[in-house]
């Protein structure tokens, strides 16, 4: 029984959108980690992670968001999270993500947020 998880990549100007779908757990988190690493290596530091297709997230997935945040912000980038279902949003909220990360309802809102405030805390 394999865990289903996919990542789709798209770009909009200097923003990279990673759209996650399926189950993000300890088994699939390394795939997400690699995807973020590749963006950073390619010089893409303004990331939007679209969680609309995500049906499940555990702390292993949340750890990926955390491990790259400082590096991105130190280099003028950020990770903005958008579109989580109520079930996935609850997990982000239990661990206090909304206090640290910009969390938006959808991709257009995340794009607008980058225009207003490229790096959270840098307003």
């Amino acid at each position, binding site marked *: *029984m*394999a*865990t289903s998880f996919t990542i789709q990549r798209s770009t909009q100007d200097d923003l990279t959108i990673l759209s996650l779908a399926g*189950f993000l*757990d*300890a*088994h699939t988190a390394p795939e997400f980690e690699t995807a973020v690493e590749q963006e950073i290596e390619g010089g893409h530091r303004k990331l939007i992670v679209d969680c609309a297709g995500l049906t*499940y997230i*555990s*702390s*292993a997935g*949340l*750890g990926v968001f*955390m*491990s790259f*945040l*400082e590096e991105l912000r130190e280099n003028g980038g950020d990770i903005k999270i958008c579109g989580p279902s109520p*079930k996935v949003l609850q*997990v982000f909220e*239990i*661990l*206090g*993500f909304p*206090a*640290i990360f910009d969390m938006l309802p959808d991709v257009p809102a995340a794009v607008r947020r980058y225009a207003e405030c490229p790096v959270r805390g840098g307003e």
Partner: protein
Amino acid sequence: MPSVERKFILQVPSSTENLAMIRDFVTSIAEQAGLTPGEVADMELAVDEACANVMEHAYGRDLTKEVSVRATLDGDTVEIDVIDTGQGFDPTAVEQLDLEKLISSRRSGGLGMRLMKTLMDEVHYEMIPGKKNELRMIKHLRKK
């Protein structure tokens, strides 16, 4: 009339690939016990976190080891025991740093335990050196 205690056991090789099977097992039992959809989701995540901890820390990703998940229903509670025979690792003893400190130290340890404690009514850990380690999580059934 007292409820009859029912036990269910799933034993799987220690591979994160099997977390999906564990989640399905726990979901099915939690539904059978009459938990609400939200409580079922809570239990699914708490057990996933406990098993992932065992696979990655207690067993250090040794795929030849096995993780057991034992569920006990007694009409008042759903009890889930996650049992391993690996290196004793007490997740309840992991220091609970706040998110900002974890990010600045580039660590993410302790998040799983924070979730388990939040999502379940009780979490206990017992280590029997040389024999087994057991993480017990309990959810009380809300009487309708």
